[in-house]
Structure formats: C-alpha cells, structure tokens
C-alpha cells in the first residue's frame, strides 16, 4: 500500500521498506522504407492479406536476401541522433524459433555485432527536470507476420505482409527508475525518430512498440530478477504495465517468494500483467551468423555524409527556442516534441510576444484541439491567425478575455481574428470618456454599495470593476477601468 505521500515516482512502499524499480526498454521501430529489409515487396500498412509478400519473404527454397540501402542509412542516422557509436562492420545472425507467422524458421537479426553501439539521450520529465538514459545498442532485424486467432474456433489465420519489414531494435541500459521516466524516454526516442524521418512513430499502427524489462530492489542492492513485458503499443500502457508489474514483484518478494525470469503480457482490460510462455520451453535461439549474408560494411566518409545531412534535433531546437523567444524550458520541451509544433510556433511567434504565443498555443490551442478530437494537422487555426491574435492582444486592441471569445470563433469559423473583431465590434475600449460614462452609470445604479465601500468595505472594489466590465460587454480595458474607478471612488 502506498502510505508514504513523499514517495518518489518509481518507488514502492512495502511492508519491509521502500523498493526501487529498475527498468530497461527495447523499442522496436519500423523503418519508414517503401520496401522490406531484404526483399522488394512493399512495406506499406493495411494492404490485402499476403499481397505484399515476395518469394523471399515466404522463405521459398533458394531465395536469397539482398539488403535495402535506405534501411541501413536510417539505422546509421538514428545511431548518430542517439549520440551512439557507429560500427562500420556489423554482422547479421539467424535467431531460430518456430512460429506459424515466421516462414523462415528464423528471424534475421544482429546479435554479437550490431550496426550501432553505445550512446545516450537526454530525457525531459514532467517536472521540468532532465535525466540521461544510456543506449546499449541498436540493431537491424526483420519483423514477423501477423496471426489472427479470432477468425475461427480451431484455426489461426496468417498474413505475411509484415514478414521481413525492416525494424530497428533500440535497447536502453537499465538506467530507468520509474514508469514516468520510461514514458518520457519512449516519447523522446519517438520524437527523435520522427525528426530524422527514420520511423513515422505511429504507435497505434504498431510502427513503434516497446518491450519493458522490469525488476525491483532495495536501494543500493544488486539488480533483482527481471520480467519482460512484451509488445506495448502506447505510452499510457507502458506506464501502467511497469507500475503493475513492479507491484506484483514486490508482493511476491515480501511474502518470501522469488521472481521467475519470464515473458509476460499486459492485459489492457485488467491493467495487470500475466505470464505468456511456459518456462519449460526456455528460450534458446541458437544464434549463428547468417550464411546468406556477408558482413555489412560501409566507409567512415559515408557516415560523415549522413551526419552532415542530419536536421536540427529536439535538444538543440529547445535551447534555441528558450534563447530566441524567452520561453521556459518546460514550454520549449513541449513545443519540440513534434516538428510540426515547432514550425507552427516559430511562424506564429515571429515578431510577437514569444511567451504569450507559447501560452496560447500550449494551453488554448492544444486544449481546444483535444476537446474537439482533432489532430494538430487538422487545426482550424493557422499559425498566421494565432500570431495575429497575439498581436491584437499585445497592442491592446482586445482584452485577454475577449481574445478567448475570438479564439473559439476562430476554431469554429476558421476566420482571421481581425475579421472576427471587426464583424462583432469587439475592439477594446480604452478611451477615458467612454469608460467614465460606464462608471457613472454603475455608481448611480449602486448608490447603497458605494456608501458601504466609502465607509470602509474595501472588498467591494472588485464588484464595481465587474459591473463596469459587464456593462461594456467585456470590451472595456480592465487597466483603465481600475485606474478611473480608484480616482472616482476616492
């Protein structure tokens, strides 16, 4: 039970003390190639069953794999973006196992000599803190086919369209200490992959999925026995699965039991993990170098060419946004999550108040899109129009309150804020004479309250401001109203 309210995320209060989680992630990212890793069949999603299958993918005798250069380039690009060591010589191995959707009887993967070695990335946490997570390796491998088990009572249906599609497996070091950190890590990897175009990061379609290795220990102790939770395809599920798995392990250990190293599945309906494979068939993949493929070799100059073509990455962009637009590091980290956000922001904030633009984009625009169930690319408000709205607020044409009204109209009609302000006559009234007229009206309507105020009930001042604003239909400049009211009620 979680009785200690000051417990750090990732810590579990047990009967015997506080437990710490140790988490490592294996992310499988589908490379955004047109064709497969070792064949010329299409890698696209959602085709008719078995349409995108070549004789190589179906493992017909005598067929030979030929590697896709674009996929190799994406792996190198990703390695560079993860600040990792690029191995100019790497080797493909066969990982042997039997399953109905694996016609070869083995997956071509990289075991002892992966294309990318150790690296590290900086991860942004929700509280604005940052932490560094080590990368163990990145290797290239084939995806398996898809089995459908719910089409028939006694049969499984097999579609080989995904068979042989290129994946990058990105393995972290066991540096992660909480479910939230794991979520932030996946978010960051996804963001980097999308910036460099190596993977579309679409978790719903399975282009990005994660296996989570979880163990628990008392602080300072050796790592405990870990369990692997397979195939999680949303950040929310990753966070839930790790929390529930760690709690399960703590319960077992505190009752004097031991953890079996095993593969587990996360059941999204119960929010718990369950054992996936029976232990007696312990994994023995009998890896060996694939005799059909020579070692993969490339020159240092080819790697340098790729490095020079890398786009600006989220970390560097974030620093630039903080410096150029004066926004907080936290706001910047939200804006750089997606390339589309940054582009939109930079256009909207150009020549405008950067902080105000960030606030309106993150709070109002993101909020409104979420409420209307729209994706960012479907936003009815363009960067140009949001920028114009910021301009109208900054130069005093409209008040912040009216701006919200204009904003919801922009969401509905896609019109420019200037047009909406003009059509509805929403310009802010800052003229002393006009506002004084309103103040006089409020005072004569509320003579009793004026007397109370003058006899010392200071709190009533807000009431008068409110009445004047109401009378002006929100258009009076609140600063001017405040100033004039104070003079008038002296």
């Amino acid at each position, binding site marked *: 039970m979680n009785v200690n309210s000051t417990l750090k995320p990732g810590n579990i209060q047990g009967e015997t003390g506080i437990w710490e989680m140790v988490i490592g992630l294996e992310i499988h990212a589908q490379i955004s*190639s*047109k*064709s497969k890793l070792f*064949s*010329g*069949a*299409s890698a696209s999603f959602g085709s*008719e*069953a*078995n*349409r*995108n*299958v*070549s*004789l*190589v993918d*179906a493992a017909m005798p005598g067929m030979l794999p*030929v*590697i*896709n*250069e*674009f*996929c*190799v380039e994406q792996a190198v690009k990703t390695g560079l973006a993860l600040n990792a060591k690029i191995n100019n010589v790497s*080797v493909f191995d066969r990982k*042997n196992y*039997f*399953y*109905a959707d694996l016609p070869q009887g083995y997956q071509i993967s990289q075991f002892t000599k992966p294309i990318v070695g150790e690296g590290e990335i900086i991860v942004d946490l929700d509280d604005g803190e940052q932490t560094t997570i080590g990368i163990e390796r990145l290797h290239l491998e084939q995806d398996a086919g898809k*089995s*459908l*088990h719910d*089409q*028939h*009572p*006694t*049969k*499984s*249906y*097999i*579609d*080989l369209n995904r068979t042989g599609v290129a994946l990058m497996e990105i393995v972290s070091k066991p540096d992660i200490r909480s479910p939230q950190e794991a979520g932030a890590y996946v978010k960051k990897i996804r963001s980097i992959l999308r910036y460099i175009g190596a993977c579309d990061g679409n978790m719903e379609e399975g282009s990005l999925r994660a296996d989570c290795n979880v163990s628990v220990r008392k602080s300072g102790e050796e790592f405990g026995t870990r369990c692997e939770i397979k195939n999680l395809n949303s950040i929310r599920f990753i966070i839930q699965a790790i929390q529930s798995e760690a709690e399960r392990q703590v319960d077992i250990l505190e009752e004097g039991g031991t953890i079996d190293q095993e593969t587990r599945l996360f059941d999204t309906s119960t929010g718990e993990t369950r054992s996936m494979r*029976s232990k007696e*068939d312990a994994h*023995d993949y*009998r890896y060996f*170098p694939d005799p059909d*493929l*020579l*070692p*993969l*070799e490339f020159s240092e100059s080819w790697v340098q060419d790729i490095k020079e073509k890398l786009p600006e990455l989220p970390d560097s962009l974030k620093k630039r946004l903080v410096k150029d637009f004066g926004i907080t590091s936290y706001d910047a980290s939200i804006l750089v999550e997606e390339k589309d956000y940054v582009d939109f922001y930079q256009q909207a904030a150009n020549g405008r108040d950067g902080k105000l633009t960030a606030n309106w984009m993150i709070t109002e625009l993101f909020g409104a899109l979420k409420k209307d169930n729209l994706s960012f690319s479907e936003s009815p408000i363009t960067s140009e129009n949001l920028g114009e709205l910021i301009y109208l607020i900054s130069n005093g044409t409209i008040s912040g309150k009216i701006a919200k009204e204009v904003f919801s109209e922009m969401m509905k009609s896609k019109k420019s804020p200037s047009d909406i302000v003009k059509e509805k006559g929403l310009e802010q009234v800052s003229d002393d004479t006009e506002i004084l007229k309103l103040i006089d009206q409020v005072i004569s309507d509320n003579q009793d309250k004026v007397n109370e105020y003058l006899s010392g009930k200071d709190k009533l001042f807000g009431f008068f401001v409110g009445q004047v604003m109401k009378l002006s239909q929100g258009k009076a400049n609140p600063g001017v109203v405040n100033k004039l009211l104070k003079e008038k009620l002296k």
Partner: protein
Amino acid sequence: MPNKDTIVDVPTVNKIARLSRLDIPEVNKESLTNDLNNILGFVAQLDEVDTSNVEPLASVTGHKLPLRSDDVNDGNIEDLILKNAPESSSGFFVVPKVIE
C-alpha cells in the same frame, strides 16, 4: 577422438530435438548421440590451431555485401504464395490454432 568440451549426451539430443520440432524415436537416440559426438569430435580438431590473432573470415571471395535501392518491385503474387498452402481462406494461410 572426441574433444571433451563437445560431448553430447542423450538429454542434450532431446533438447535439440525439441527445439527443432523433431520427433526422434527412443531406439535411435543412442546411435544419434554417438554420431553427433563423432561429427563434433572430428570438427573439434580445428581447435588445435591457434587462431587467437586471426580475424574471423566471412568470405573467401573478397566480395562485399551488395546493397539494393529502396524500390518496390516484388509482391502482388498472393495466389502464387498461397499455392502450396494445405489450407487457405480469403487470402490468409490457415493453420491449426497456435495460441494457448
């Protein structure tokens, strides 16, 4: 002259057979174990050569791994792909249920 590091016993043969999905009759296991030990022992003679300073040789031809450009030029042959399948339905292979 089997090398002592490569000795295979009956339990090992059982394990390899299970991993390979091979059903080996009990009566053949003893002779199969002997055969495997002979083969492994023969190959183990290579261990007598000191290769500690030799890079692993991937190819004797000196060829490099050929690369192809990312073009879709294969597939769209589902009829051919499914032709040898003992059972198929609406474009899928159909196999005995493979989930626990």
